[in-house]
């Protein structure tokens, strides 16, 4: 393998890996406040892409993306308020099945609104053949947008969770819900907020990646499986580990093309998921006691 090819694969891996990481962080944020896996996570990414594409002619690219993120956040909040919030003592399994139902519902609604055809946002800079050269390899500038946007999201999220009082309240809620309530924190609002945050980051990821991967109504499912694999791989609830695990999965997938046919790419993620569930269900970086607390 030449150095150019190596870098080409590496960047392809990092691009997909950062998207997987963002989806996984979305899983983690909701898992931490509620203990459930929100399988509608992938749909947020699809909605972000689709909504921005629809708004593009009206608002222009930057505003369309902002609007798509905001609308998806409202959508996330509504999902929680309408389907999760009012449940009395909901079991974890019941809530997970509800999110699977919601994901199917969202997908079907998207099919009716945007049809079966594939849409995509234009490249933010230049077009599909524009490229920058890094160490002899030719990389689309959009790749840098994706990596940059995902990196920024990770940094902003960690600042939010570490240094703001709302972020601290959310962590408190994740650590011990009863105690948080008795400190005067409205834990239900924290759950709604976690859905909004997850929807927001998912939507933004959906926008920046749309020029490269295109957006179709059924994008969400695949992403949810990849994101779930990454979340488990890193250890559920651990967002920093999800970044590492996301990049790892992305890079493994990218380099696998060199050895086995492209058609088997998805099989790699699934095999990895099964493997990790059998061998280390608490994740590569997670501690045994922290993993899968609710199951």
């Amino acid at each position, binding site marked *: 393998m030449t150095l150019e090819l190596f870098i080409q694969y590496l960047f392809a891996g990092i691009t997909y890996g950062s998207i997987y990481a963002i989806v996984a962080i979305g899983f983690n944020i909701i898992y931490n406040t509620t203990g459930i896996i929100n399988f509608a996570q992938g749909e947020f990414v699809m909605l972000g892409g689709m909504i921005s594409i629809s708004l593009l002619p009206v608002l222009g690219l930057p505003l369309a993306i902002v609007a798509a993120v905001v609308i998806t956040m409202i959508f996330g909040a509504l999902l929680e308020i309408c389907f999760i919030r009012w449940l009395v003592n909901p079991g974890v399994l019941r809530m997970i099945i509800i999110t699977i139902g919601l994901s199917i519902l969202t997908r079907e609604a998207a099919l009716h609104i945007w049809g079966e055809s594939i849409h995509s946002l234009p490249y933010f800079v230049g077009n599909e053949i524009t490229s920058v050269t890094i160490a002899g390899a030719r990389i689309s500038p959009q790749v840098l947008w994706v990596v940059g946007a995902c990196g920024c999201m990770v940094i902003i999220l960690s600042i*939010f969770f570490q240094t703001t009082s709302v972020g*601290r309240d959310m962590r408190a809620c994740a650590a011990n819900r009863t105690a948080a309530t008795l400190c005067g924190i409205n834990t239900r609002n924290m759950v709604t907020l976690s859905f909004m945050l997850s929807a927001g980051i998912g939507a933004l990821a959906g926008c920046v990646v749309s020029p490269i991967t295109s957006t179709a109504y059924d994008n969400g499912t695949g992403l949810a499986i990849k994101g779930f694999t990454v979340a488990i791989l890193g250890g559920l609830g651990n967002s920093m580990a999800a970044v590492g695990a996301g990049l790892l999965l992305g890079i493994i997938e990218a380099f696998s093309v060199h050895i086995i046919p492209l058609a088997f790419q998805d099989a790699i993620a699934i095999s990895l998921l099964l493997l990790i569930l059998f061998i280390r269900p608490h994740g590569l970086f997670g501690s045994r006691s922290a993993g899968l607390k609710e199951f």
Partner: protein
Amino acid sequence: MALLELRGLHKRFGGLHAVNDVSFGVERGLIKAVIGPNGAGKTTLFNLITGTVPASGGQVLFAESDISRKKPHQIASLGLARTFQNIKLFSDMSVLENVMVGLHVRSRTGFIGSMLRMPAGRREERRLRVQALQLLDRLGLSDFADCEATSLAFGQQRAVELARAMALQPSLLLLDEPAAGLNIYETAEVGRLISSIREQGVTVLLVEHDMSLVMDISDEVVVLSFGKKIAEDVPQSIQQNDEVIRVYLGE
């Protein structure tokens, strides 16, 4: 009127009558203890007062308003704080952060300000930090401010939980077995701490098994047995009460 007033409080778990028609008041500025054999319904009583478990019947009045239908977080922000028998600190957070979570209820920055880290939000954050440190200092915990809360020794975790509860600036503090698992020196220390909390104008209601501590610091004692109140009096009279002696020592 009393700061806290329980009127005919009931709680049934299926066939079990965990709290059965319990009524008493806690006057402002007092330390009142609830005692009783295991399973008498003491912790359930606390859960009813703080709203974590809904009552089957009866009323809880706090500062003259009915809180029986209120949500736990609303009750907490009215100034009613509690600690737990089995310590519930926020893991993965420092001692300081644990206390800051308690303080946040009293802070004024809204949601958006805090999210965007506006100047007011940053000032508020600094103010919270200073307040939290002062609070830790008063409880002799300032050396541990940056330690992970759950990594501390048992007695210290208790104190952190107390600091977090005090951060809510409560008018009434509920303590669920504050001396459980502590040795006699630590217990005496806890006793002094509770008395000093009362000096600061906070009313205290506690559940405790350590009788010497209870008799030492409380102004009034309520005795529960099988969910029913069997006595309520000053400590000296409780020690002489035949019914109480029978419940504790058998016939």
